[in-house]
Structure formats: structure tokens, C-alpha cells
């Protein structure tokens, strides 16, 4: 499609696209590509804040990073994965119902799903912390009624963190699935029924396979931010559920242990990006990006 358009519009000049992309390229090169390179170089340095840093190809930063924080890395991937599964379990039925049964109110329902996200991410998470706190509006009331024992708590648990993560990133799952389902020709479902497929069979063999690109895009858009997030885990998880993002932040901003922090950052980035790129390669980057764009 782009090729035919380029043919028609050739007279605008061969340099036009470069003039258009140049400012964006410069910005992304200076503030996205160069910083990634600098985190890599910093992860191989030695030194301290007082004495300055020098590039010594110190691979030891990586062995230290993995040795000290493998547990947080694995926990982050686990919580991110569980939150992603929860988002599919919650988001798919919602997207399905809005796309197929929403009728004239489709956009209204979709807007209702997005509306809570007008409130700042930090504020929403802290609100959950208050709601679920041991003497808060829910648990406090239930304890007052004697339904729950006085020492019952929800906060500071893995469950609270995973549900909090799923809460914060649910729209990133609903939107791509909805985008795919909404464009689906509903007559194919009708056709499946006419070919004697039951409701379950029509869903499993027709609707589900056609909606998988949306699910795949949603998985990327939920898994990466949830496994690298630390706000949710800090507010809802207490001290026993630290995720790797928190470690990176503390090492950078509190301990000023830059080379070690850079090594942890690079490990996290490598783990996530290798996974995601092989995943996107198998599905096609373009396709994933296009679903994201909708």
C-alpha cells in the first residue's frame, strides 16, 4: 500500500520523508538510543560517587547484580505474568461483551472502562492502599461487625500486588482485544451457527482464533509494564514483595550505586526485550504496533 502511494506522490521530492522524520529521529537518538548505550557503558564501570567512575569493563557488576537480586527479578516476572493472566481473564470477557453486546452504547462502555485512568496512577494505587488497609472502609467495617477477626489483613501480600497490577494495566488488555473483536464481521459467527456449531464451539473455533492478535498485543502491553512496575508493589506489597524496579530505583536514587544499578537495569531490559522481540518477531512487529495504535 505504501509503495503505490509513494509512486503517486514521487513528485514531492525524494528528500521529503527525511526532512519529516529528522527532528523525531534526532530526539529519539539523543534521548532514547544514546541513554540505552550509556546505561550499558555505565554497567561496566567501576568507581564511586566521590572518586568518579572509569570504564574498566567490570563484568563483576553483572555477577553481583544477578547474585544479589535474582529473587526480585524472578518475583517481578512471576507477578507480571500472573497479572497478565488476570488481565486476560478479566479483560477478555469485558471486551467481548462490549464489542458484541454493547450495541449503541459500545463507545460509552469503553469510555467507562477508561475513565478511572484520568486519575493519576499513583493516586489510584494509594487509594487502594487506603481502601484495603487493616482498619479502612472495608476491613474496618467488617471487623466492627465481627465478620472478620481483628488481625485479618489484605495488604502486604502477593495477592494484593497482583490484583493491584492487574487493576492498573487492565485497559491495555481490553483496548487491543476490543479493537480486534469490534472489527470482526459478526456474520462469521452466524455462519458458524448455521454450520451447526454450538455457542462454545463457535467461540473456540471462530471468534477466539480471530481475536488472538489482540490478546498478543495486550500481553506485551501488560506484561512489560507490570513486571517492571514498583509503585504497586511498594504501596500494596509492603517489604516482603519487593520487585526489581524498586531495587533499581533505590540503587540509583538512594544508594547512588550507579554501575551496579545500571547492570540490574540492563539485565531487566535484556530479559524483557529478548522475550518480547522473539515474541513480536514470531507475530510481526507491524501487526502488534498496528493493534496498539487503535
Amino acid at each position, binding site marked *: 500500500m505504501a509503495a503505490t502511494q509513494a509512486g*503517486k506522490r514521487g513528485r514531492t521530492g525524494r528528500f521529503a520523508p527525511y526532512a519529516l522524520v529528522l527532528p523525531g529521529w534526532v530526539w529519539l537518538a539523543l534521548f532514547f538510543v544514546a541513554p540505552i548505550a550509556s546505561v550499558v557503558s555505565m554497567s561496566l564501570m567501576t568507581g564511586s560517587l566521590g572518586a568518579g567512575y572509569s570504564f574498566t569493563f567490570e563484568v563483576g557488576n553483572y555477577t553481583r547484580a544477578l547474585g544479589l537480586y535474582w529473587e526480585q527479578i524472578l518475583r517481578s516476572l512471576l507477578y507480571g505474568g500472573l497479572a497478565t493472566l488476570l488481565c486476560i481473564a478479566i479483560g477478555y470477557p*469485558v471486551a467481548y*461483551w462490549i464489542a458484541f453486546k454493547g450495541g449503541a452504547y459500545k463507545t460509552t462502555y469503553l469510555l467507562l*472502562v477508561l475513565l478511572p485512568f484520568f486519575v*493519576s496512577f499513583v493516586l489510584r494505587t494509594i487509594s487502594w492502599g487506603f481502601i484495603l488497609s487493616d482498619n479502612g472502609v472495608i476491613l474496618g467495617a467488617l471487623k466492627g461487625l465481627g465478620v472478620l477477626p481483628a488481625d485479618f489483613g489484605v495488604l502486604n501480600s502477593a495477592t494484593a500486588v497482583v490484583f493491584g497490577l492487574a487493576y492498573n494495566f487492565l485497559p491495555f488488555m481490553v483496548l487491543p482485544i476490543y479493537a480486534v473483536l469490534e472489527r470482526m464481521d459478526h456474520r462469521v459467527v452466524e455462519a458458524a451457527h448455521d454450520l451447526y456449531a454450538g455457542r462454545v464451539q463457535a467461540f473456540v473455533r471462530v471468534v477466539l482464533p480471530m481475536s488472538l492478535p489482540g490478546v498478543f498485543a495486550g500481553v506485551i502491553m501488560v506484561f512489560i509494564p507490570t513486571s517492571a512496575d*514498583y509503585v504497586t508493589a511498594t504501596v500494596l506489597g509492603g517489604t516482603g514483595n519487593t520487585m526489581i524496579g524498586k531495587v533499581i530505583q533505590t540503587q540509583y*536514587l538512594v544508594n547512588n550505586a550507579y554501575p551496579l544499578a545500571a547492570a540490574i537495569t540492563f539485565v531487566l531490559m535484556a530479559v524483557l526485550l529478548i522475550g518480547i522481540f522473539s515474541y513480536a518477531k514470531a507475530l510481526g512487529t507491524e501487526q502488534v504496533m498496528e493493534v496498539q495504535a487503535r
Partner: protein
Amino acid sequence: MTTATETGRTPGGAAAERSARRRGGERRRPDWGKYFTWAVLCWLFAPIVFMVVFSFNDIKGRHNVTWEGFTLRWYSDAFAYPDLNVALLNTITIAVLTMLIAGFLGTLLGLALGRYRFFGQSATNLVMFSAISAPEVVLGASLLSMFLTMNIAVGYWTILIAHVMFSVSFVAITVRARVLTMDPSVEEAARDLGATPLATFRLVTLPLLVPAITSGGLIAFALSVDDYIITSFVSGSTQTFPLWIWGATRVGIPPQVNVMGTLIFGIGVLLAAGNMVLARRRSR
């Protein structure tokens, strides 16, 4: 949806009867999907409702966790914390500048990517895809590493740089999607009627792109207002609204934060509702 069903059942009387019976059966069955969706909506709105209700809470101490009575005190006293006001102002000005800069750069990128084939196109797509999917903590940490290495002082301007960086790709893909679906014959018609390339762009292409540019800009604005993680790395001593709230959690969040959150939410709801009404009117 009903129209699709209608057209689907015109051929073949038996099929029509069958699907009619099925629809009748569906009507009697409880709509579990609807209950589920509403339950999820309640879950999504729970912290918002909490925030709004507790902006009216007449607390005596520092902690706004249990209900102590109704008051409008915090609304009349909304700007009682000077540094919270500064933080809010920073958030708003950074978001507006991000919207303008990322909107401009992203529109150019999206236009080039949607319209031309050029050397470096797939590299551009790849970089944009990585910038969108890279975890925030990695983006923040990388930027801070670079600013440290180059001895650049972090503050207001580094926050702005970071916000433009992570939102420009969102604008670009929004605009690109619109360019790809645009009917090229409209522009050809303009040229056939003697419009110069510049006039064609100004009078035909740009107006067609305005909805995409607007929604891209709004996405950039929303991402900027909401960002905590990247900002926390590159802010230095500059405060933004989310950073201030985070800092206040240790000493107790004043109800003024709920008030501001409620007001921002209210403005967002009004904008979204207005946008939807406009879209309805346009589609008619």
C-alpha cells in the same frame, strides 16, 4: 449488530427460524456478560469513588483513611500547600509543552511513515516500537545514566525531554494509522483542481489529519500528567503532582490531594463527554 444479524438471516427460511429461536432463547437467559462487565466497572471505579468521597472527609489528624464527617473545608482551602501548587503547576506546564512538542514531532514522523517508503523506515518503526514497549524504569534509569555521565543537571527541562521522548511514538503511530487509511483520491482531486502541494497539504491533508493529531496530542498530555516512574529518575529536586503525592505518603496525604484529583477527574470526564458528543454529531 442487529443489522448484521438481519442481513445474515435473509437467505434460507430454516436458518432464519433457527436463529430467531436462538435469539429468543438468549433473551430469557441471564446476560452474565453484562453482570460481569458491571462488576468489573465497579472494581475499576472503587478507588475513584473513595478519592472523591474522602475529599469531603472532615479529618482531625493527618490520616485520611476512616470517615469522620462531611466538610467542604478542603475545597475552599484547596491551595493551602504552596509546594503542592508548584508541583501541580509544573505538571500542567510540562504536559502542555509535551503535548505541543511531541504532537509536532510525532505528526511529522507519522506522516513520513504512513506516506513514504524511505531508507531507515523499518529502523524507525523498530526504535518507536522499543520506545513504547521498553519498561519505564529502564527508560528513566538510562536517561539518568546519560545525564550523570554528561554532567547535565536534572530538573524541569530533563523531565520535559523525557516526557517528549516517551510520548512521541504514541503520536506517530496514531497519525500514521490515519494517514494509511486516508483516501488518496481526495488529495489528487485537490491537485487536479490546481492546488499547489503546499495548498493541498494545508487545505486538504492537514484538516483530515486533525482528529488523529488531536487524539495523539491528548494521549501525550495524559501520559505526561500521569507519569511517576520516569519522572522520579530525572526530576532532581523539581516536584510534579505524582511525585509530591508519593513524597507525602510517609507523613499522610492531605485531603487537598483528593480535591485536586477529583477536580482533574471532573475535567477529564467533561472533556471525554464533550468529545463523545462531538463525535456523535460528526458521524450523523
